[in-house]
């Protein structure tokens, strides 16, 4: 076996990168592909084509990639349909006079800005349900990135926000609802936080609040009685 044939057996490194794994409809996304041999030298004579399939596996985009500074690139407008898309790239290269086809595939997710924010927020909080609505102006990608930081800050503020609603789920648990509206950087955030709280001594169906422990209730009553007795004694002592 001569040296050229031996080299053909060597694998070709084929890296395939996209700038983001999550997109919002109508956003412009990039497909970036790099082809290189085992020594890291980029292959510049490849003929690369990209194909994008929607969640129903219908071909929604196909284009030939352009070679730029060692990378094969193209951009596309993200479709409006939500779901997981398949990004498939096929490159035909000629290596040592022999044609070879290399393929790679990757998935990305398309959803609304609200879904992206909600999904990111769920990584920060647990045991709560969040409804986030955002009015976005300007560049939507930047807005979502900034919104994430803003809303995490708002969530921390929500911990000290009074309850806006509460109701009993059953005898031992209640739902706490906190709502807040925030206006920052020309964006409005309406957040509803729902949190389940365990009530050890039962839940009051009328007020939706946890029933205080019997010990605390007795203590409160004793303090009120003592306070009242002291007050009446003072009035009686100095007036009557």
């Amino acid at each position, binding site marked *: 076996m001569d040296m050229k044939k031996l080299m053909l057996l060597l694998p070709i490194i084929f890296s395939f990168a996209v700038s983001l794994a999550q997109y919002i409809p109508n956003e412009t996304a990039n497909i970036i592909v790099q082809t290189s041999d085992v020594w890291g030298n980029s292959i510049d004579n490849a003929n690369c084509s990209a194909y994008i399939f929607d969640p129903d596996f219908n071909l929604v985009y196909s284009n030939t990639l352009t070679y730029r500074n060692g990378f094969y690139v193209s951009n596309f407008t993200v479709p409006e349909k939500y779901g997981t898309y398949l990004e498939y790239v096929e490159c035909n290269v000629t290596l040592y006079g022999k044609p070879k086809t290399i393929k790679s595939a990757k998935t990305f997710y398309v959803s609304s800005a609200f879904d992206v924010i909600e999904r990111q927020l769920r990584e920060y909080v647990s045991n709560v349900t969040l409804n986030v609505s955002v009015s976005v102006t300007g560049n939507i990608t930047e807005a979502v990135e900034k919104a994430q930081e803003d809303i995490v800050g708002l969530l921390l503020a929500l911990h000290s926000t009074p309850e806006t609603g509460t109701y009993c789920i059953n005898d031992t648990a209640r739902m706490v609802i906190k709502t807040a509206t925030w206006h920052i950087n020309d964006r409005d955030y309406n957040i509803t936080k729902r949190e389940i709280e365990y009530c050890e001594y039962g839940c*009051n169906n009328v007020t939706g609040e946890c*029933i205080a422990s019997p010990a605390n*209730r007795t203590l409160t*009553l004793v303090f009120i*009685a003592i306070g009242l007795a002291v*007050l009446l004694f003072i*009035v009686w002592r100095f007036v009557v």
Partner: protein
Amino acid sequence: MIVKKAVALLILGMIFFASLFYISSLPSYVTGLERFVYEMIPLVIVMFMLYIILY
């Protein structure tokens, strides 16, 4: 003496209305002797006010 009584009645009157408000918002799970004690508070204050007025 009258001024002292007037001040005392004013203070007791405020406590009386505060206790009434507290009872009206008393949770429904407070029952029995516990509720009875709370409801007796304004009555005790009224009795004391009457005592101050009459004597």
